[in-house]
């Protein structure tokens, strides 16, 4: 009997690998959702005040710390506005995003609100309040004013799931802005830096270099979307690749409003291509 169910599990796994959208597993998901969602809604209604109470208890000290830290940050930022370097960095990043508008004059973006996070321990995703009815399809890139957020992996009728860049599965092909050398971004989970992988050991990468999408991945992520800056480079002589950490521009813990790139449109080549 054990083997019967083991066999069944393997069949399910194989199905997941081989099916496209709309297969029997998707229908199974829909059926299970139909059964469990009412229970979840009922539970949430009852449980939300309790949950909020407990989360606020556990969050209290970190909220206080965040508050103090944010106050310091605000002070620091007000000072930095007067510093030439800060203005330049800020300016370059904005040019990157504005460059987006320039590179893609006909880009169509749809704003959406983050309505939840699918609860899982090894998967980092968000649910947004727009779906198939609004024109969203899987594999569309998602950004926010700071930079690349991730990609759509599931589009239901009126909500979608977006896999965040910090998830190891999200993987965007990337390069250093202004340079042809290419690699890929690999997430390492929450509160860990992104990894910039598959980069040639000969390539010159320095801390502070800006990382953007390269567009070499079958059109999922349009090129030139800002991702982050290089925060550390470790290059061992014997190793085949460099160990490069990237600090993302986007704060994945406070995502609120994002934009889904429905259509990147015709790309106008810019300098540095």
């Amino acid at each position, binding site marked *: 009997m054990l083997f019967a169910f083991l066999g069944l599990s393997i069949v399910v796994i194989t199905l997941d690998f081989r099916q496209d959208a709309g297969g029997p597993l998707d229908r199974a998901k829909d059926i*299970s959702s139909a059964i469990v969602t009412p229970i979840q809604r009922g*539970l949430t209604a009852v449980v939300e005040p309790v*949950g909020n109470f*407990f989360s606020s208890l556990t969050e209290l000290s970190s909220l206080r710390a965040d508050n103090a830290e944010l106050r310091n940050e605000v002070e620091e930022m007000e000072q930095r506005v007067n510093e030439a370097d800060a203005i330049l960095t800020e300016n370059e990043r904005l040019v990157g995003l504005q460059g987006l508008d320039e590179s893609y004059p006909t880009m169509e973006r749809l704003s959406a609100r983050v309505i939840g996070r699918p609860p899982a321990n*090894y998967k980092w995703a968000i649910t947004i309040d727009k779906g198939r009815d609004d024109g969203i399809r899987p594999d569309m890139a998602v950004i926010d004013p700071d930079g690349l957020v991730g990609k759509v992996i599931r589009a239901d009728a009126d909500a979608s799931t977006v896999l965040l860049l910090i998830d*190891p599965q999200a993987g965007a092909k990337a390069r250093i802005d202004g340079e042809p050398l290419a690699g890929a971004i690999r997430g*390492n989970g929450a509160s860990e830096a992104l990894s910039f992988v598959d980069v040639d050991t000969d390539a010159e990468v320095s801390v502070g270099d800006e990382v953007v999408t390269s567009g070499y991945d079958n059109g999922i992520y349009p090129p030139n979307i800002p991702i982050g800056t290089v925060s550390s480079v470790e290059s061992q002589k014997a190793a085949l690749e460099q160990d490069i950490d990237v600090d993302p521009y986007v704060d994945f813990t406070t995502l609120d409003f994002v934009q889904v790139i429905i259509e990147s449109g015709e790309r106008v080549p810019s300098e540095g291509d």
Partner: protein
Amino acid sequence: MAVSANEPRSPGILGDIGVGRILVMGTMVLLAVALQSTLLARLTLLGVIPQLVLVVVVSLAFLDGPRVGVVVGFAGGLLQDLLLPQSIIGLTALVYTLVGYGVGSLRQFAPGESVWSPVFAVALASAVAEFSYALLAIILGQEWVSISFTAKVAGLVVLYDTLLTPFAFPLVRRIAARFRPEKVYRW
């Protein structure tokens, strides 16, 4: 307590378990999934969500043996895959099926009425489940986080699951005992 019988268990897949019992176990698993994705998703321990479904699977396997362990493990795992997808669908089903079988088979080695046995079973099962899932996902070609990150999360999951057991196990046992069929096979 029900009177024990000296007759051997009758063959047949779930013949001697009873429809009422099956329904109740199914409901418990359903509730566990719903709870895990709502209340427990907000009561995270350092960002980690406890695996209540696994606790329920282990509890039922511990109480009723390997056959129940396999079925409940598969059902709970599959539900979790469908509703709280993490990586490949079917992977949790596979892992929980094996865990259910393992716990159900090894429970006979647990000392009689010790309070710690189910707690230990959950701790061990959680550790095995977390690492097996990660390992299988990597083998099947999925990109995964680092080993240290997995260990950090797994350690927290084991801790959290263990903390839940003294609350979950007695409840599961009480509900399951209500629906025990007359012909009890005492071990």
